[in-house]
């Protein structure tokens, strides 16, 4: 397995609150890797460190064998893009102007708007279906529209590696699947896609590679069919469930147990959970 993007021995923390220790991961080239796990297990934190937005307190993230922190930032930005979870929206900026800023890494003082820039912005807005919003102010849009605009910003960057932090939040069911289909298409075109998702069934449907996290540790990694079991769901989420075969896709499908049975499962000895988040 070749992995352009990998991390070794990461210690991740916000100030003094340590989220993960000794965390290592390899993102297989050309994979659609989905990271799942309970709230506050360190999924987003790991993604941020892979995108060099969060500096690890220890350990190293490597891109093409070089420590990512040592590479020129603009060079990294041409290889790796990310959809952040809740980005800052400046007041009074129009959708198209925001998407155009996604081209920053490709621009120079005297090459401010090449034909490639124009084409990339047009295409990014078309595939995320925000073209008709081009003239609207971003701060006037609904959460779902805004999410798709930010996705367009990340796509305009045209990076071979794309990280997405909960790309389906704020979206209704139809738009969730549109975004996931779009990710699948990007993956089929040869990009490496890494996404944090909450819905296990969506994760199993779309992922080629599943990374399951719990309390800052990766407890399982591999193809969804090999990884996703009732024991794993119980261990990671503390929820009793049955894992079936998705009648549409043949991928694993997690069906949580009935309320009464789930309750007995909860009161039964649950695998010891450390108090730390």
């Amino acid at each position, binding site marked *: 397995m070749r992995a352009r993007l990998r991390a070794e021995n990461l210690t991740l923390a916000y*100030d003094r609150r340590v989220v993960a220790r000794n965390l290592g991961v390899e993102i297989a080239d050309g994979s659609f890797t989905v990271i799942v796990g309970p709230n506050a297990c360190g999924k987003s934190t790991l993604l*941020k460190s892979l*995108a*060099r*937005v969060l500096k690890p307190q220890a350990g190293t993230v490597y891109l093409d064998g070089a420590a990512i922190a040592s590479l020129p*930032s*603009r*060079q*990294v*930005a*041409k290889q790796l*893009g*990310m959809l*952040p979870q809740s*980005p*800052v*929206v*400046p*007041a*009074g*900026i*129009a959708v*198209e*102007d*925001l998407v155009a*800023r*996604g081209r*920053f*890494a490709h*621009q120079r*003082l*005297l*090459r*401010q*708007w*090449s*034909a490639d*820039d*124009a084409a990339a*912005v*047009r295409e990014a*807005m078309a595939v995320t279906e925000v073209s008709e919003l*081009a*003239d609207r102010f971003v701060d006037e849009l609904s959460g779902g529209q805004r999410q798709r605009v930010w996705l367009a*910003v990340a796509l305009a*960057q045209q990076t071979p590696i794309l990280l997405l932090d909960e790309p389906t939040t704020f979206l209704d069911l139809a738009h969730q699947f549109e975004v996931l289909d779009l990710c699948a298409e990007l993956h089929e075109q040869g990009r490496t896609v890494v996404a944090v998702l909450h819905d296990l069934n969506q994760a199993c449907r779309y992922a080629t590679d599943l990374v399951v996290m719990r309390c800052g540790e990766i407890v399982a990694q591999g193809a969804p069919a090999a990884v996703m079991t009732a024991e794993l769901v119980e261990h990671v989420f503390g929820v009793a469930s049955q894992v079936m075969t998705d009648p549409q896709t043949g991928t694993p499908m997690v069906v949580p147990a009935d309320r009464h049975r789930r309750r007995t499962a909860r009161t039964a000895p649950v695998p010891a959970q450390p108090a730390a988040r």
Partner: protein
Amino acid sequence: MITEPDAAAPGRARARQIVLRSPGGALSLRLPARALLVGAVLLLAAAAIAVVNLSSGDFPIPVGDVLRSLVGQGDPGTDFIVHELRLPRALVALLVGAALGASGAVFQGLTRNPLGSPDFVGLTVGAATGALVVILLLDGSGGQVAAGAIAGCVLTSIAIYLLAFRGGTQPFRLILMGVGVSALLEAVNSYLIVKGRLDEALAAQVWLIGSLSGRGWTEVTIVALTLAALLPVVLHYGRHLNMLALGDDTATLHGVRVERSRAVLALASVGLAAGATAAAGPIAFVALAAPQLAARLTRSPGPGILPAAAMGAALLSGSDWAAQRVLPDNDIPAGVVTAAIGGLYLTWLLAREWRRGR
């Protein structure tokens, strides 16, 4: 060069861009059409006000004669009044206004806050402290006062930065810290004046208000050099400023070296404010209001640097005209006029932000 309209959105109302591309596509420029137009109109307005300032005074000169004198075809008497007496003052007004406008635009962009301007966070007060120390304690004058002002401004900004720094600077923290430091230095300034000799204290007080009267070619040179050195820097980093407006994380993701870009922009902005204050004293309000007024006119999301500079030049020239003309027998300092307008503006701004915040 070939010109093409922004292909992605023909005929859009908002933020239309003019794209210029060389035939091979190696060079391309993208210029916001409305901002260019507004900037050009403001520059013309500033120049027109400056010409009016040159023509009016104790000895009125017709505008035609002023223009002839400016292109070197005036008679010796007019030339003397225009070139020696009035031109330095008019140029200081234009250049100081431009420097303050640009400085304010960068500061407000960095802090993402309309109150983040060099005079509000105490840089001009710090410059005043530097100047007062030179006037009152070291018996300096002229260029030494200017140097003192620059030193005071830079030291204050370093102090604010260090105080506000805790694992990356948060814009709002920077502003609050600036307001605190500003209050502290005001006290120091008052103390220095109270302790000073009467004649020196008077000179210091005049300097403190910020005036353009009696400004000569020395002051013109100070601001002109400041602008020549720092305006290209802030313009070059203007695109970084746009990215920083999206937050540190997003800026990093797109390849901006956040801390470095911010440091360069902040230093250049401090330098512009310092140069302006060194030449004209602490002129209030221009750095605060010019970027906001310009942004309203250009309808652009962030404070554009060039439109803000042009707006600053027009504002200060206009204020200087008012300072000389509104009360016929009194040449009141321009700083008083800008402070008076600035008070009204600030009240309006705070009321509006407060309403929006609720």
